[in-house]
């Protein structure tokens, strides 16, 4: 892995490897290596799900799952959040896993072009990968290596790949909302034909920027799709107990932003709903809202055993695992189980290679602590 940070090449060929079909078949403009300045308006998405599409969606989920399983493994002992002591784990600090929530980024980002932008949360691996970022560079970033997207400056909580329009995970709940809205506002001011997708959790809808950002998007009719990943939990607190009213979508509707609630563990449903909404956004109809109901299978951070939850609740969610569910659907669509298994294997191999590469990758130098801060004023200044 010798690519410089930020210079990641994430074209489909290299990204998805030789898996027997072309990513291009699904999305003509997607991940086009040349930034498409003014793409033609997207056609209305076909609700008929082809096998190829279904397989690509499954593949994205499998890659996210494999990535996070490996990251979790590499993080054991690497965080002291709940008083545990530190070892020299490969991934250190808070690691927020989106295990069980993969269908949301997979289904939504499948509709995005490379020059479309997304903003993410503290739980951002899925968004990063689904938007087309390199798994190897992502792993390097989690390992804190110079070859990571952020050169090791950000880690999991701040992972970003601007080259594919992934404008950053964020350590502050709801902070991505105004940023997404601003990115969409810039697109409108600059006459660009791109859209922005803004991901956030169910807990974020109780922070002020949620209201301000949604109001703003509607006032200026900006091209942004808000996606609430409703995993029922906010750290150790059940979100519904802290949330007045019917929740995310009804709040958006009160701001005259229409949208849909969808089973966030059904990647095909997410794909269909997001496609409809994004078509409206691309047609200049203003912001739209997707409320995706899913479940946070793991603890809040990797060291959180989440014993404050009922096991039954977790069991129910595991039974409705998005990959499990998609596998059944793929079978119904005619995919052999070996074809699906091959995707899993490929994902695990890709991730294993990324772990090897990241383990061998160079650390940032101490000097890097003083770059990328600001042009004026010495950083070493004491």
């Amino acid at each position, binding site marked *: 892995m010798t690519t410089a940070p930020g210079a990641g090449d994430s074209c489909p060929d290299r990204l998805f490897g030789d898996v027997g079909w072309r990513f291009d078949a699904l999305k003509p403009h997607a991940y086009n290596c040349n930034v498409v300045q003014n793409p033609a308006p997207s056609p209305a998405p076909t609700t008929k799900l082809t096998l190829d599409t279904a397989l690509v969606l499954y593949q994205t989920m499998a890659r996210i799952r494999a990535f996070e399983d490996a990251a979790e493994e590499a993080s054991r002992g690497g965080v002291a959040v709940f008083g545990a002591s530190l070892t020299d784990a490969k991934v250190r600090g*808070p690691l927020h896993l989106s295990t069980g929530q993969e269908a949301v980024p997979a289904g939504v980002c499948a509709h995005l072009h490379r020059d479309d932008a997304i903003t993410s949360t503290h739980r951002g691996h899925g968004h990063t990968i689904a938007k087309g970022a390199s798994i190897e560079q992502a792993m390097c970033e989690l390992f804190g290596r110079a070859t990571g997207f952020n050169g090791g400056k950000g880690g999991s909580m701040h992972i970003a790949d601007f080259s594919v329009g992934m404008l950053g995970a964020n350590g*502050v709940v709801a902070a991505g909302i105004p940023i997404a809205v601003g990115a969409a506002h810039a697109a409108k001011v600059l006459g660009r034909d791109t859209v922005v997708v803004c991901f956030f959790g169910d807990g974020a809808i*109780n922070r002020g920027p949620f209201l301000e950002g949604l109001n703003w998007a509607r006032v200026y009719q900006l091209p942004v799709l808000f996606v609430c990943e409703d995993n029922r939990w906010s750290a150790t607190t059940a979100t519904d107990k802290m949330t007045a009213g019917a929740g995310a979508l009804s709040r958006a509707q009160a701001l005259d932003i229409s949208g849909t609630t969808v089973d966030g563990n059904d990647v095909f449903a997410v794909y269909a709903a997001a496609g409809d909404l994004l078509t409206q956004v691309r047609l200049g109809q203003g912001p739209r809202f997707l409320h995706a109901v899913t479940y946070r299978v793991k603890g809040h951070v990797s060291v959180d055993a989440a014993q404050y939850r009922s096991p039954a609740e977790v069991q129910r969610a595991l039974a409705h695992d998005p990959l499990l569910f998609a596998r059944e659907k793929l079978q119904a669509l005619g995919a052999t189980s070996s074809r699906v298994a091959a995707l899993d294997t490929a994902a695990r191999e890709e991730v294993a290679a990324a772990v090897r590469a990241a383990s061998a990758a160079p650390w*940032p130098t101490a000097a890097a602590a*003083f770059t990328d801060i600001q042009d004026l004023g010495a950083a070493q*200044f004491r």
Partner: protein
Amino acid sequence: MSATRLSYAAAACLALENAMRDDARVIALGEDVGRGGIFGQYLGLQEKFGATRIIDTPISESTIMGAAVGMALSGLVPVVEMRVADFAMCAMDEIVNQAAKARYMFGGQGRVPLVARLPIGVWTGSAAQHSQSFESWFTHVPGLVVVTPATPQDNHDLLCAALACGDPVIYMEHKELWGLVDEVTPEARLPIGVARTLKTGSDITLVSWSRTVHAALEAATLAAAEGIRVEVIDLRTLWPWDRDAVLASAARTKRVLVVHEAVQVAGFGAEIAATVAETLGVRVKRLGGLRIPVGYAKPLEDEARFGATEILQSIRAFVA
């Protein structure tokens, strides 16, 4: 007095428990406090006092702090959990324009007795948005008290004092001190504003607070081996700060080195150094954090930290 071994987190928890038992006006509110807080600093309290007094809240920092102001004006003494000081950025109007101003602005008609807990400091692997120390900011704001305990006993005693203070207190625990265990005497009390001299010495005065106190002590021990006699003062509270203790020591040693983890530029060390230089004209030096965001990777994070070695170097250079 009975002493017991407690962690920095448990010592604060005990202080809060006793205050809540003694005074029905004391309550706590914030995210995840019901399960004990993410650092265990509220462990067991909801079981003991119920969800009405240990209040789980939505992720609404502005309103957590703003509601606490309304509660304080209405007769409660709220402990306001901000999780890490970085997130208090989402509640700055409520802290600076409301909590700090209400008593004065309304001509003394009301008071805002609250304790806002804003944990500070570099926190392993947590990078730029979870590692900041803002203590100097709050000393700049009239109306606020600023407390920065370094030990379990002080965390106990100063939290007791903060709860009794009657004005808004910015209470800054250090995220890498939660696990520090030491003897704690629960009956002990301590007024706000009194420094502690941890070690006497005649060559140089070392002033510090919070986590850095421990590195300062270590450096002083190393310096002693080189024949440099270091006086170490733990300031403990930054507003008010114990000018008398610092000036008395400085008058003897003629050299003051202020050491703190927060960014050195416009850090509270500047206030101390300026005061000492203005008042006594003795020599001053500072060793504070570099003016950089805290990076994630260890080599980057390490640049935002310093320990006994760097302090020792500063001491050596100073007395040379």
